[in-house]
């Protein structure tokens, strides 16, 4: 029986988050908390592997108490159980401190054969927690998987995306695998699973439960610090051209040549 862990993150819907260029304050009107969209592909990958090979899917997230909603929603897709890692001491964690906290939870769960993550979270866009988690646990990491084939005997064949195309790798479990959206089409949650998820008990693990030192987690345990947040530099004024397509094309070509000379 495969022990599969899927790490998810609750994120703000990022296309709604903006900094006011004048006041530098965040405009978060109508911003909702959602499951990081890339994590749904990781969850689907975990569920499919479980259905094909037998096993159990456990969801893991670190976040404030309200992140429980993301776990509950993800349970509705058919995951078996979930753990919320939440403690005031975890606040301000960078990717390292997050990975360290998750690693401790994985150990407390008795380890896993496979840990899936999404490509990256849409708020931070770092793609760092998965590989750091693998290093802390001392197991292999494979990034950007688009296809998984069970080769038997604890070996997984992975096709993954790199800049030049797709490579095939063979990895002996346990391992951490991050997936890209090409890998599958996430299912629509069934009504039954959704109803079960509503009633599910989701244990919260705190700093004490994880037997971690407060200096190892959250802001205190982070190696990086954000020192400034500001709006992206504005691009110059746009020139808008209208008119006859032939003339527009000729004018554009003239301008492109000019640019090319600079």
């Amino acid at each position, binding site marked *: 029986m495969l022990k599969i862990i899927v790490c998810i993150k609750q994120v703000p819907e990022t296309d709604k988050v903006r900094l006011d260029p004048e006041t530098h304050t965040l405009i978060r009107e109508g911003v909702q908390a959602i499951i990081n969209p890339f994590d749904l592909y990781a969850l689907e990958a975990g569920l499919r592997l479980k259905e094909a090979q037998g096993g159990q899917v456990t969801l893991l997230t670190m976040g404030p108490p309200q992140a429980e909603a993301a776990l509950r929603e993800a349970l509705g897709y058919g995951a078996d159980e979930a753990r919320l890692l939440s403690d005031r001491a975890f606040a301000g964690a960078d990717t390292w401190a997050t990975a360290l906290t998750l690693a401790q939870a994985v150990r407390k769960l008795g380890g896993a054969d496979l840990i899936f993550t999404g490509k990256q979270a849409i708020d931070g866009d770092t793609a760092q927690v998965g590989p750091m988690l693998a*290093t802390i646990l001392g197991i292999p990491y494979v990034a950007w998987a688009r296809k998984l084939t069970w080769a038997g005997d604890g070996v997984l064949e992975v096709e993954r995306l790199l800049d030049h195309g797709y490579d095939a790798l063979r990895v002996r479990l346990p391992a951490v695998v991050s997936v890209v959206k090409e890998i599958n089409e996430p299912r629509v949650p069934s009504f039954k699973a959704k109803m079960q998820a509503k009633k599910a008990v989701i244990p919260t693990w705190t700093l004490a439960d994880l037997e971690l030192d407060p200096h190892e987690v959250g802001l205190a345990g982070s190696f990086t610090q954000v*020192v400034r947040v500001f709006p992206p530099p504005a691009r110059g004024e746009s020139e808008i*051209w209208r008119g006859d397509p032939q003339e527009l*094309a000729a004018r554009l070509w003239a301008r492109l040549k000019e*640019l090319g000379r600079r």
Partner: protein
Amino acid sequence: MSLIFSADKCTLCGACVDACPFGVLSLEGERLSIGEGCTLCGACVEVCEAEALALPEAEGPSPRPGVPLGGIWVFAEQRQGRLAPVALELLGEARRLAAELSVPVAAVLLGDRVAHLAPELFRAGADKVYLAEHPALAEFVEGPYAAALTEIAARFGPEILLAGATYVGRAFIPQVAAGLRTGLTADCTAFALDPERRLLLQTRPAFGGNIMATIITPRTYPQMATARPGVFKRLADPCPGEGEVVRVELGSLTAAGPCTFVGTVEEIRERLPLAEAEVIVAGGRGLKEAKHFRMLEDLAELLGGAVGATRAAVDAGWIPYAHQIGQTGKTVAPKLYIAVGISGAIQHLAGIQSSDFIVAINKDPEAPIFKVADIGLVGDLFEIVPALIAAIRRERE
């Protein structure tokens, strides 16, 4: 740990309440209330003019040690004996930073039979090349690459370690940072130095490019960052192609690790990879059909560029995923980006915001792409693009 609030300094202006991305701050009566869910992001501290809010001073997991003497390093990514352009760009940036710190620049070259690349790294700005050649490094696999770079960095002590934010860099550099127990900042678009504290100021976009953040690694070495390809500039004048090659014998690599390379199953059939293209012609939903990408390929070829696409065009099956640009695809930084029939969803804009010059061609004058475009052509792409192709061909004949 929680936010430090000095009620005596607070003017109840409410700026922090608006600034909090997580909505945990509120004004209750005559006092600021800090609710559950604070991540100590610092957005409120930034806007508080009365300086009533502060982040707790983090006590490090370890005290900041003495500055290592290895200088500034760049991971010299290569595949099949060809260097990734971002490695050369970062050597240019490293030289600029090294001049301020008066330290040397080194490149780390991993692979199998790649020693011939050293002169190119010297010309691009490296004083020294750390070279590790091993059959296990012939093709990229996270485990051996992470083990090799971790071992070399632990042995020779860089102060700063930079790598391209390519698929390869973003896959294994976090493992190196974790192995070295130091911080890492992803996908940076600008670097600067705080000379007094000798800190690398690492600036990157977050929240899909809606917000920029400057990040430091204040207590540990090396200070590590991956950097967006195409953003940093190579040296204008190449250095002499000479320097010291330090051949490193690795103790950490074994022939049969738990993860092995099987083969390349598909090469992306591009004349030019998107990450390296100086010109990109990209198409979106407005192209309507797969066959119309042919037109973009023609234009890209005439301009010596590559073809990109939005998620909508990829999801419609008009072009393979490898061409997808945006948050769910690739991030690009060409000199010229021509957006054809692209409305400009924020996820797409996140992937193109580092482009030098953006041209947009779209029927809809309200399309958000026009807000980021340097030149916006309002009109029918099926008339404008063929006319542009014809104009270029006419002139070249």
